[in-house]
């Protein structure tokens, strides 16, 4: 569903992403791990079509800038950016109209209820706390029922209820056949559900690790620290 081939993004001479290849199938939760400055957010923005790059990115077989790709892609940015003078409900209405969605109202209500925003529908974007803005941002990304969802540090700023709900939503999306790519530093938050992990170091994928690859008793955190703290960087590609 999400397919990245030989993707390179340079800022001047600095390669923020160097020849990245990754893919996420439908019904799969891919986790993007890496230390600060590894190039995770750059990769995510490039996949979403917000940055120029060399190489190829397709969503559902369509080049990422095409209308077909945009129709099936949901994106939750690292920092929630809302329109300060639109209400919470109007953010969802705007997305529904811009994406030409039909019968979206019940779905919007359900999302707002799940994230405890149903009593905040008339609140303006600028009146919300950072955590609530993040919840609205998640609702906006999920409203069009995308087949591929990309989340950049989605749990940062959320309250415990928000974290629980978002983890449940991610699990449901995966079970329903959606392809998910999640970048996070909170390794334990994805420990239960991950299928494949891409560990990035200095703009490159240092290791691709499938759940079936790791030994019994070994956690995702063990794999991550083995790569990032110098116990060999096998599997670099």
């Amino acid at each position, binding site marked *: 569903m999400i397919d990245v081939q030989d993707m390179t993004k340079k*800022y001047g001479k600095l390669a923020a992403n160097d020849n990245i290849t990754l893919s996420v199938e439908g019904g799969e939760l891919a986790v993007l791990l890496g230390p600060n400055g590894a190039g995770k957010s750059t990769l995510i*923005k490039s996949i*979403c*079509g*917000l*940055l*120029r790059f060399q190489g190829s990115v397709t969503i559902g077989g369509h080049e990422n*800038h095409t*209308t*077909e790709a*945009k*129709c099936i*892609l949901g*994106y939750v*940015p690292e*920092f929630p*950016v809302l*329109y*300060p*003078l*639109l*209400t919470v*409900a*109007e953010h969802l*209405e*705007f*997305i529904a*109209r*811009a*994406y*030409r969605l039909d019968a979206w109202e019940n779905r919007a209500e359900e999302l707002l209820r799940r994230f405890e925003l149903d009593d905040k529908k*008339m609140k*303006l*974007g*600028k009146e919300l706390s950072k955590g609530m803005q993040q919840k609205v941002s998640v609702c906006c990304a999920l409203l069009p029922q995308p087949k591929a969802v990309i989340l950049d540090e989605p749990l940062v700023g959320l309250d415990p209820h928000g974290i629980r709900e978002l983890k449940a939503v991610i699990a449901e999306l995966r079970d329903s056949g959606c392809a998910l790519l999640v970048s996070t530093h909170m390794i334990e938050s994805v420990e239960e559900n991950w299928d494949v992990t891409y560990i990035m170091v200095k703009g490159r994928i240092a290791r691709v690790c499938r759940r079936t690859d790791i030994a019994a008793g070994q956690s995702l955190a063990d794999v991550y620290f083995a790569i990032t703290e110098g116990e060999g960087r096998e599997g670099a590609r």
Partner: protein
Amino acid sequence: MSSLIFLLLRSAKNTFLELLRKPAQLVLWVFLIATFGGVILLSLFTRQSAENFADIIWLKGILLALILVFVVVAIQKGLSNGDVIFDMNDVNLLFVSPVSSRLILMYGIVRMAKMAFWAGFFILFQSNSLGRNFGVGFDAVLLVLLGFILAVSMLQILSLLIYSLTNGRPGRKLAVRLIAAAVFLPLITYLGLQLIGTGAPLPALENTLRSPLAAWTPVAGWASEGTVALITGDMGSGLLFLGLLVLTGVLLILYIALSNPDYYEDVLVATETAFEKKRDMSRGQFNTEGSLTKKVKVSKTGIGGIGSSAIFYKHMRESFRANRLGLWGLPSILAILGAALFSLFLRGEDGGIIILLQTLMWMQIFFIGTGRGLQELYMHYIYLIPGSSFPKIVWSNLEIAFRVLVESLAIFWIAGLIMGEPVLLIVAVIAVYTLFSFLLLGINYLSLRWTGADISTGFMMFIYTIAVAVIMLPGLVAAVFIGSMFGENGVLIGLGILALWELVAALGCFALSEGILHHCDMPVAKTGKQ
């Protein structure tokens, strides 16, 4: 103390080294310094005959008005958050360090003077126009800059003091407002009486500026009187009024340092607010409405449109929520009133409406970016909405297109009527102004497309300004050349040619920036250190 001197010197050194590492910024600085040198040379060699010079009292008036604006801003800042004299890194590192809070205040004031210098930097480029209009040399320009820096530095201290005295005390806030009004009331009353007495705005203004009331008006009066006195060689008055300014500043600093050594809380809100604003901008929240504390009433809700057109209807909803008049808020009303006032002064002058057009076109170069269409580029939504790039760009700029069209209709009809200009000329001026805005939008997109938005905001502004000059030049040359061949109707024909060129050039810019949403990085407001 040594740690603070180390901080100041090392920051200056690192700024310089950083500049050397960024060739584009270095080129910009070399260009700026070369322009500055050119302006000085030009002012030295282009002296005009004495009969053309305006009375120096008008220079005092300009300086007084300019500093008055800063006075109002300083009082307002003092009553809300206080002025920003520290950065967030000062708060996090210095405030918790065992350095004396009074020394840290001195450090803040040195940094503040640096900010005041940059705020007045544009004055250095006025050397030629000051020489041409008032017959003064570069020494006078430096004196104007000195007066401005002293006034602005003093106002920043005043703002800090007002905040520290009135924070959380509505009674004191009201008292500051009343005192501020009382300080300027004599000058305003005197101007009103002069207007009634003379019946003409210019003589009334001149009489007011010559009165002792103008000279003794705190800060703005002292600075303008002291500066102009020094320029005209009246050392006594000059030193008296500028000395008064310095003395007041020193007394305010002493008061803050001695009475309130625990001023950290008073500067914290302004520093944090400024920091968050910069951080939000660098994260894409380019819309300043988000940081306004004004309560917004939500009455009508909902968004119209479908597909790309939803962007336009969203802008309409945001605009009507921001202003009761919708697209035409307070800035539009101020522009119309300002232009009407300007027209009163230009009445009877040959080509008055062209002077107004020129002034507004200059302003439009920098105000076009305030439209919601361009701000939309700093957020991810427009890139992700399904659909091709061009309709999204068109729909997202309809709001500013409507705003400019209606603004220009109001501005130039009112100004034209005041100045008694022919209808055809007014229509031509409206066409030139409206199409110029259209062209500016095109140049903005072209600059983003050409650079890929992968450069700093300052450098982007530089490229944009150069592009405006280069693209407008052929149209201006053709308008002047062809217009000069038609005698009486030359101005009208020249304006027609200019409007036509703007339309063609704008269409060209939009065509060349096709696919911008796919071919440039989502721009980030690179706001420097946060």
